[in-house]
């Protein structure tokens, strides 16, 4: 089908503009958020692109870049969540090949400690992992995390403290 010569309705233009603006400002960080949750860059991009398409379709209700950003985050987390649930059960999905090793200039010791920490993070229950990534990667507030995950602020608090406690215990057990 081709586009007709008729003018687009205002909401269509608003939605197109919102996609362009939010893309410029947030696409990378959303893909990285997706990657931290999914550990798979192809799926992360798919999930974020789907979220943008969904946001575009809903722009007439959102009409506000802040709300639209919150909506995008929620979509990304929800979709990643569904994928992870599925994988947890299927346990067949081949993980991405490891990222390139850090160059000689990197602080290798710091890198190793990060790797341990991220491995411990990956072993946490899904909800705890999501809360910790939203808190410490995106720097979201408790209220924003609650909105993104569709859970209460109390639940955010408890997932966060349990998650951190778990990370601490895991790391203490390592030599």
């Amino acid at each position, binding site marked *: 089908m081709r*586009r007709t010569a008729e003018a687009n309705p205002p909401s269509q233009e608003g939605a197109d503009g919102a996609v362009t603006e939010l*893309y410029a400002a947030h696409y990378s960080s959303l893909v*990285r958020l997706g990657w931290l949750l999914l550990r798979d860059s192809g799926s992360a*991009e798919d999930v974020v692109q789907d979220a943008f398409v969904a946001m*575009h379709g809903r722009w007439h209700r959102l009409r506000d870049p802040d709300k639209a950003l919150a909506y995008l985050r929620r979509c990304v987390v929800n979709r990643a969540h569904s994928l992870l649930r*599925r994988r947890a*059960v299927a346990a067949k999905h081949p993980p991405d090949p490891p990222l390139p090793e850090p160059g000689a200039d990197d602080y290798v010791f710091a890198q190793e400690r990060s790797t341990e920490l991220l491995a411990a993070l990956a072993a946490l229950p899904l909800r705890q992992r999501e809360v910790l*990534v939203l808190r410490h990667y995106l720097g979201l507030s408790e209220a924003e995390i609650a909105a993104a995950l*569709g859970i209460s602020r109390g639940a955010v608090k408890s997932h966060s403290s349990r998650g*951190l406690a778990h990370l601490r215990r895991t790391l203490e057990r390592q030599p």
Partner: protein
Amino acid sequence: MNETDEIATRLRQALHAEAGRVEPSPDALDAIQSRTVPSRRPAPARRSWVLGVAAAGLAAAATIVGVSIVANPEPATPPGDSQQLTGDQPKMARVTVYYLGLSDGRLRLFQEIRRVPAPEGREAAAAVRAALQRAPLDPDYGIPWRGIDVNSVAWQRGVIAVDLAFEAGSNAGDATWEEKMAVQQLVYTAQDALGSPKPVRFTVDGKPIDTFVGVPAAEPIERADPLEVQAMVQVTEPAEGAVVSSPVTVEGVANVFEANVNWEVLQGDQVVKHGFTMTGGAYEFSPFKETIELPPGDYTLRFFEASAEDGRPTHVDTKTITVR
């Protein structure tokens, strides 16, 4: 700085370092825009479909009639089930009634648990009557019948005998898929009511019939393979329009990939809660049960199978409920 703060700081650094190594693809905006041009957007119109309208020349008064089933309709208030009953209250029975609906775009059977008036010993006939005449609570489902009633449902020499009342005429020609499904709707309802998968012999006012809306009926009719006729995900509790208290117990049957039923709770278009639950077994119809805590309000429960390929919701069944 206490230990937890230290962990948090280290986690923040590690996440940023890790995320910084991911390079999003440069042409993603094009990919998104190609999916949002107006001509590519599906119209938000209510999707409706019509069951095969009685074929011309089908002389039987019992016909499969056009049924419009609308996806995502307005929340409905449950009709009928709690009739105003005064004086002599007929005995009520809890029966499973099968209806027709769309599951992933295909015509399938969906169960509803209904309370219907039924004299002692007549529960199976009451269930079949509901399948023929009583509108489903869920507006996503429909009844394909008009002008037909049931006289009796009974055991007869090892088969289930369903005696119907309608003006039989000649109805030559092979049954359509819709007609076969309409007959299976009655077969399943009668079998569930009697708790047996034995075949069903249909008669009209006590007389044998050769065909029943085009389906050969001289011999008892076997139930079709559930995989071919039943919806893969069916929510049976709470019923559409139910007013319930939290935590909400959701029950149903499903036949899904890895026994994994996904769910979302929506308010308007917003997903306010989501999760998943397991059925009793993969690749077979088996029951599931999930308990969801929700504050008071109106919600749509959306249960589905996430596609094995891309996680997309498939075989969706929805129920609109109110939590008080």
